[in-house]
C-alpha cells in the first residue's frame, strides 16, 4: 500500500502523466550509462586479450627509422643500396621524420629521437640548417615516456662515425 502512495494519487491518471515520464527518463539515463559502461568493459576486455607486446610494436616502428631510405637510413646514390642502421645525418630532421612517420594521432606511438656521438658534433658546426640533436614525430606530446639507447653509425659528408640513438617512446 505504501507503494501505491508513491505511484498513485486519488486521481491516478494525473500521476501517470506527471511522474511516470520522469521515472522513465531517469531509467533511460541509468540504462544508457550502464550500457556505455558495459560496452566499455567489453571493449577493454577484447583489447586486453589481443594486446601486442609493446616491444614488438616499438621495434617494428623503430626499424622504420633505421632501415628505410625514406626515413633516416643512408642510401648509396650510386648503387641504390640502403645501409640499415646507418643514419644519414642530412636526413636527421623533423621534415624527413614527418614524411616517413606521417601521423598526428596521439593514440599511436610517438617518438623523440636524440642522436649523440663522441666523434662528431651534433649538430655539426658547419651545418647551419641543423639546429638541435633531436627530432620528434608529429604526434609527440611529451607526456609519460620510456627511453632506450641504440648504437648506430652516422654517415656525414662521406665519412662514418660511431653514434648512439636515444629512442624515447611516449606511452
Amino acid at each position, binding site marked *: 500500500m505504501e507503494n501505491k502512495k508513491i505511484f498513485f494519487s486519488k486521481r491516478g491518471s494525473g500521476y*501517470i502523466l506527471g511522474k511516470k515520464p520522469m521515472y522513465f527518463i531517469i531509467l533511460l539515463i541509468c540504462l544508457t550509462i550502464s550500457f556505455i559502461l*558495459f560496452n566499455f568493459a567489453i571493449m577493454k576486455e*577484447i583489447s586486453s586479450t589481443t594486446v601486442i607486446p609493446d616491444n614488438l610494436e616499438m621495434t617494428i616502428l623503430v626499424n622504420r627509422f633505421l*632501415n628505410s631510405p625514406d626515413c633516416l637510413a643512408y642510401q648509396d646514390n650510386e648503387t641504390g643500396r640502403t645501409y640499415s642502421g646507418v643514419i644519414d645525418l642530412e636526413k636527421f630532421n623533423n621534415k624527413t621524420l614527418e614524411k*616517413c*612517420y606521417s601521423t598526428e594521432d596521439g593514440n599511436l606511438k610517438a617518438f623523440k629521437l636524440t642522436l649523440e656521438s663522441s666523434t662528431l658534433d651534433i649538430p655539426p658546426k658547419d651545418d647551419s640548417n641543423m639546429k638541435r640533436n633531436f627530432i620528434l614525430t608529429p604526434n609527440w606530446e611529451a607526456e609519460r615516456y620510456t627511453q632506450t639507447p641504440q648504437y648506430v653509425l652516422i654517415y656525414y659528408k662521406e665519412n662514418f662515425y660511431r653514434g648512439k640513438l636515444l629512442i624515447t617512446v611516449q606511452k
Partner: protein
Amino acid sequence: MKKRGAALSMLLASEVVAAAIILLLLLNHAARWSSTERPYQAYLAKDMALVIDSLYSSPGGNILVNYTQNASNYTVSINNENVLLYRKGPEIDDISRKFVKTETDKVIAKPLEKPNKIQFAKIDNKIIIDNQIRINLNTLSCDKTEGESLKDKKILVDPGYEKDNIKPSNETCSIANSFIFKLTNVWVNYPNIFSTRNLHEYDEDEGILSINCNDPSKSDKSPEADVIISFRTGKDNDITNNNIKAFIVSGSGKEKESRKLACLILNFILENKALDDTKITGVSIVPFDVEATDKDFPDGIKDKIFVMLEIGNTESDDGKELLKKIPELGDPISKGFIEYGK
C-alpha cells in the same frame, strides 16, 4: 476500483515488456561483442596493421608476404591509415586498427570479401594488398626523374664481339636485329640507327633495317652516337643461374641516364608475359670501371648513355631457352627506349 486496477496492470505489463526489450537488447549486444570471434577479429586487424608497418620498415627491395592467418570470415578493407574488418558491414560489427603511413609509399588495396588468401607486397613505392598479387619480385625501382626523349638521338647498336670468333654470336645479333626492327617500325627513323657491325642496305619497300650477321668485319662508320646499346650472352658455371645483367659505366657523365635506361629495359623484360615460361632468376644493374675491365666494348662509351645487356647463362638450359626468344627480348628492349623520356 476495477478501472484503476486494470490501468495498474496495463502499466505494469508495459513496464515489464519495456524492461524485457531493453534486457534483450543488452544481452544481444553483449553476446555480439563478447563472442569468441571478436577478440580474433581485433587480433587480425592489429596483426595486419603490424604487417603493413613492417613493410614500411623494410630497407628497400621487393617483398611479398603470404598472410598465414585465416581471415576468410571477414571483409578486409584497408585504406591509407586503417585496417578495417567486418562481417555484416562497416559501422555494424567492424573493428579497425591504425598503422602509420608515410608520404612516399602509397597503399593500393581493394576490399577483400571473405578472402581465402591475402598477400601483402611492397614493390617500388607501393604497398599492395590483394588475394592474388601478380608481380615479379625482381622488378627494379627506376629513377622517376624525367629524361630527354631518345627519339631523335643517334643510337649505336653493338651486337657483340667474340674473341676467337670475329662474327657476333647468332643470338645476340638476332636480338639486336629484333630490337632495331621494333624500334624503327614504331618510333625511330632508320637514319638514326647505327651499328658497330655492317648494316644491310635499308630496304625502302619493306622498311627493314638490319645488321648483317654473316659479315665478320666491323663497321667503318663510327658516328658520334648519343646512345649505345651492346648485347652479350652471359656465362656462369652455376647452371641454376639464369640472370640478365645490365652493365653501365661507373663515373660516366651519363651514369644516371644509363642506369635509368637499363632499369626500364630490365623491367620491361620482366613484365613481358611472353617470357613467363622462361625462368629468369634475377636481373641487376652493374656499374663497372671501364679502364679496369678486360671486356671488349665499343669505343667512346664513357660519357654516353651506355647499356650493355648480358643476357642469360649459356651454360644452363634455361639460358639457352631464353636466348632463343628473339622477338620476345627485342620487343621489351625497344619499349625501354621508348619509355625513357616519357
